[in-house]
């Protein structure tokens, strides 16, 4: 099973490229010209996203460098202990919805301190693998089309994240034991 997963993950991108090009060619598409035409949008899309990226990265950088992140962790930990969530993964839980890059760094640090095969390491892996960055995704996607009123999107996304967190702890406890 693990082998099949390995094969799938390493072949996904090349297989996608292969299938698209072969299928396009067989359907009579001028593959090269239509690729270049589509690729032109790449630059404008990246440039449009840039100011949103700068805004988010600067805000998070200030919050973290000031020590506010550490204070937030110490405030929330009594609540999460009631849910059975190991306090050691709290920095990851807080960072996960905010920044994919930063949370990847925190996960690597958790592995270094507790080991990837410890209960904490497994829960952290499951949380990281089952959730996504929320603020980044919302700012990029809504920003790209100029939406300002996002209605209930953030609340529903945060609820899904919390459900994913609790499910991670429960499933890891059942599958691996504490």
């Amino acid at each position: 099973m693990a082998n099949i997963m390995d094969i799938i993950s390493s072949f996904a991108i090349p297989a996608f490229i292969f299938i698209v090009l072969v299928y396009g060619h067989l359907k009579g598409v001028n593959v090269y010209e239509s690729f270049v035409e589509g690729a032109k949008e790449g630059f404008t899309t990246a440039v449009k996203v840039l100011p949103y990226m700068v805004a988010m990265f600067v805000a998070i950088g200030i919050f973290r460098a000031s020590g506010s992140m550490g204070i937030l962790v110490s405030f929330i930990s009594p609540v999460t202990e009631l849910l059975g969530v190991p306090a050691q993964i709290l920095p990851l839980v807080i960072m996960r919805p905010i920044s994919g890059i930063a949370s990847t760094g925190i996960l690597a640090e958790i592995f270094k301190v507790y080991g990837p095969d410890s209960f904490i390491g497994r829960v952290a892996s499951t949380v990281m693998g089952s959730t996504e960055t929320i603020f980044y995704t919302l700012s990029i996607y809504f920003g790209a089309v100029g939406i300002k009123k996002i209605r209930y999107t953030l609340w529903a996304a945060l609820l899904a994240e919390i459900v994913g967190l609790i499910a991670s702890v429960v499933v890891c406890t059942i599958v691996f034991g504490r």
Partner: protein
Amino acid sequence: MVNVIWILFILIGLVIAVFNGKVAEVTQAALDNAKYAVELCFGLIGVYALWLGLMRVAEEAGLVNKISKKMQGMMRFLFTDVPARHPAIGAMTMNIIANMLGLGNAATPLGIKAMKELQDLNPHKEEATDAMCMFLIINTSSVQLIPTTVVALRSAAGSSNPTEIIGTAFIATVCSTMAGIIAAKVLQRYY
């Protein structure tokens, strides 16, 4: 909402920095991160160009419609306010498939394309539609089959079985996505 959180991050950060005596660190972090964000964006141009190029080929070949048809029933349930044959359905379907395979870099340009298509259907250009909200909630709860980054990190950290968390992560991601979809369906009645 993003506006409020953004301001809070910065203002709380600045005030706490003064109390913690970390004003210099905060200045440095702000400047470094601004620079890093730009570098990241420029790094994205190539990947965006590659995937948008491939998408155009797939589109012109009719591949998108073909894959979309297999997920049509589910997509109709999720996005009741989008016409079945609208290009947004194709882009959203491809984005969801790319996310499931863990092709994060592929998913993002597809997702932005989907948002542009959805914006064409939007009567109030600054306010998100139900379809946009549902699409982004599914995106952020990440229906991921293979958490490639985590497996790579675990392997690098010397795990005896780096892929053992694929199963647990899959179950957890199904739970979170279901919760997100239910929350979206309920909340769209009240907002």
